[in-house]
């Protein structure tokens, strides 16, 4: 294996999984009947969706007058919801694309579901520009196609049209990226399916075989798509921010919007991913794949982006004051003290205060707190867009135009409908497709599975065989009894003539030297090592080093970390010679050990 095997990183796959276990755990939710949780969630979502469709039909039939928009506040809940949904979608692309480029293996636990979430969020978002125009039935006029109206072209200089291209591109690229990743996983589901399901997954898996050349191209494709999806996701929300930034409205016309919006999008997106993942991992029993470590990593991203958003808020306030521009100053005074002050404080609390809780490690790793805070953040980010849009429009340059806006039931219904649409699509996704990227998790198993990391980690040098001696984990390796039946072979499709079914000989590993698991079967007296007294022996044991063999293989850096963590008393101890001594003890070369210890002074 060329990649370094870490002995201090948290495992990303728990439960000592084999490849087959991974397949079983991740595919079986699509094979069994949905549980009660799924059914209840689905009924609620479908109901909301139905009501939303009714409200949309009402809007198209009766016109935008059924909304409470007016001349002053021309954008209300419609565009607030649009920006909110697009922001939510950004986490998926970030997880798949940007974390791939940064080689963050933990993305494999959540990327599939996050990308699906992106696609559904973009669908919900795209609804709003579609229906908020007066004549929704000719909304295709926005697209530049040869037409009989001149031919009349849309205004390519307008950010509103840039939005159209950005959202369409973002949707298409996300869909392609997501589906490309899904093809091998659909093949896994296909090969376990029978009858009609098999036919369906046959179509969905595009004939995937697992050929090496195909995998090579697949990885190349994913890498390039990740490379171009990254600037894409940054550009999409930048362009959305331009809808506001290129105007002249105080509070809108500011260059901070692009980075502020992008950070905010990632912030809210990760919050939504966490909300979904926490529920998903509970209902589908995937805690060993979507671990606390994954949740903690996502919380760290939330902390960073939330802090950026908070700094952006403060920057806006500072610049408004520093600029001396009375309209800008009023815009912010109005946000905090005007008719919508409650939304401003809601935004400040939810977005700036609440994520700061994640500085505390205990809270970062708490599922309940994460779930609660993720919902608070999503609410806060909705308020942020509402503050930017409705609050600002209600009080712009001309006091005689000042107005107040509150949504009509139709607008609220459409928003609830998009929530319904989003959750309906997500629940359907969990039924049809594996929620975690099967092939990708398998590819990180050897470096991030808990039977290979931590104290069980084996270092790259000289232990190649041991590191991969996991054949004893593959219990099913012994399942293939010699089968002299020449009827249907194991593939089940065409008769395969079993020339020789070899009962598995563990060729690559010695059976009794399987992965070293936490509970060692033997304990050696580590005090035999010069420099190791009873206290230090206890520290080593707590760190998982119980035998001479483990101490011999341990990295001195790792031992040093154990000592440092144990307290200031132990920091001066130098474990440099301990592995060497332990190797002699392991091999039973006591005379040589004694000679070595005579030469050493106090184990140094």
């Amino acid at each position, binding site marked *: 294996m060329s990649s370094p095997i870490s002995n201090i990183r948290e495992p990303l796959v728990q439960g000592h999984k084999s490849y087959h276990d991974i397949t079983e755990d991740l595919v079986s939710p699509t094979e069994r009947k949905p549980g009660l949780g799924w059914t209840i969630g689905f009924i609620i979502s479908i109901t909301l969706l139905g009501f939303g469709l009714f409200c949309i039909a009402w809007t198209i039939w009766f016109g935008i007058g059924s909304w409470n928009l007016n001349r002053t506040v021309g954008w209300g809940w419609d565009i607030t919801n649009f920006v909110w949904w697009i922001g939510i979608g950004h986490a998926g692309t970030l997880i798949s694309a940007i974390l791939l480029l940064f080689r963050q293996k933990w993305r494999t636990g959540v990327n599939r579901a996050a990308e699906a979430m992106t696609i559904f969020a973009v669908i919900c978002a795209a609804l709003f520009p579609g229906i908020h125009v007066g004549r929704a039935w000719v909304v295709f006029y926005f697209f530049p196609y040869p037409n009989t109206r001149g031919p009349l072209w849309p205004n390519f200089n307008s950010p509103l049209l840039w939005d159209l291209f950005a959202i369409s591109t973002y949707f298409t690229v996300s869909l392609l990226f997501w589906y490309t990743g899904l093809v091998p996983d659909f093949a896994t589901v296909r090969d376990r399916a029978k009858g009609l399901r098999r036919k369906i997954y046959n179509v969905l898996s595009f004939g995937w075989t697992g050929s090496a050349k195909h995998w090579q191209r697949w990885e190349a494709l994913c890498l390039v798509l990740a490379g171009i999806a990254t600037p894409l996701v940054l550009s999409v929300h930048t362009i959305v921010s331009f809808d506001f930034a290129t105007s002249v409205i105080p509070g809108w016309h500011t260059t901070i919007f692009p980075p502020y919006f992008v950070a905010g999008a990632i912030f809210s997106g990760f919050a939504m991913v966490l909300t979904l993942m926490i529920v998903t991992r509970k209902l589908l029993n995937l805690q060993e794949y979507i671990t606390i470590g994954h949740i903690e990593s996502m919380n760290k991203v939330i902390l960073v982006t939330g802090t950026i958003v908070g700094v952006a808020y403060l920057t806006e306030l500072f610049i408004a004051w520093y600029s001396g521009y009375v309209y800008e100053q009023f815009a912010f005074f109005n946000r905090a003290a005007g008719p919508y002050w409650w939304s401003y404080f809601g935004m400040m609390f939810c977005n700036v205060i609440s994520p700061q809780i994640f500085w505390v490690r205990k809270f970062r790793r708490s599922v309940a707190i994460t779930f609660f805070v993720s919902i608070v953040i999503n609410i806060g980010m909705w308020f942020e867009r509402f503050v930017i849009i409705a609050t600002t429009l209600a009080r712009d340059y001309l006091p005689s135009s000042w107005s107040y806006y509150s949504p009509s039931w139709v607008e609220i219904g459409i928003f609830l409908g998009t929530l319904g649409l989003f959750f309906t699509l997500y629940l359907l996704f969990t039924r049809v497709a594996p929620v975690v990227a099967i092939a990708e998790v398998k590819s990180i198993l050897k470096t991030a599975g808990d039977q290979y990391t931590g104290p069980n980690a084996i270092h790259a040098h000289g232990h190649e065989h041991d590191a991969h001696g996991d054949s004893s984990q593959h219990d099913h390796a012994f399942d293939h009894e010699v089968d002299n039946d020449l009827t249907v072979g194991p593939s089940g499709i065409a008769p395969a003539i079993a020339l020789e079914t070899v009962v598995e000989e563990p060729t*690559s590993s010695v059976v009794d030297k399987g992965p070293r698991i936490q509970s060692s079967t033997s304990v050696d007296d580590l005090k035999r090592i010069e420099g190791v007294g009873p206290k230090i022996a206890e520290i080593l044991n707590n760190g998982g080093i119980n035998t001479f063999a483990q101490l011999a293989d341990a990295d001195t850096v790792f031992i040093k970390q154990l000592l440092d963590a144990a307290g200031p008393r132990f920091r001066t101890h130098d474990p440099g010679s301990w592995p060497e001594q332990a190797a002699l003890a392991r091999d039973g070369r006591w005379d040589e050990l004694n000679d070595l210890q005579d030469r050493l002074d106090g184990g140094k």
Partner: protein
Amino acid sequence: MSKTKDIIYGLYNDEQDLLRAVKAANADHLEIMDVYTPFPVHGLDPLLGLAESRLHIAGFVYGMLGTLTAFLGMSWIFTKDWPVIFGGKPHWSVPAFIPITFELTVLFASIGMVVTFYIINGLGPGVVNPTIDLRITDDKFCIAFDNSETDPSKAQAFLKRTGASEVHAKTI
């Protein structure tokens, strides 16, 4: 009618076994038809002599096509076809063209690369490829030899020798 192939294939339980076997096949100059795995195995491609994928070059070309389409398209529309004055800006407003040019670059590159990927791999909706073994997409690693290229008995012996847990013959 597509012609059928007679193959001998062996299944391995671990990718390290697979890599060792492929190295051994190279040493013995046995021609492997193909290797099938449940996930991409790093280190396999150079052993099989697979040339690096040129998909990124295709992506670049498609992307450039998108750039030109967008930029030249907008330039022609706003200077020649139907020039309009927007906010006092010049007709050929290059900075305003940049966002759409970028988006279309990405769009063309992505769609182009993905479609190319499926075509060159011979994959697509409804494509049915012969299944070698159902467990390849689960947890087995497969080396397959074509009987017309490699002597079946040599292939069989090789597979047993290198630790394949199962060896089968099949017609696909």
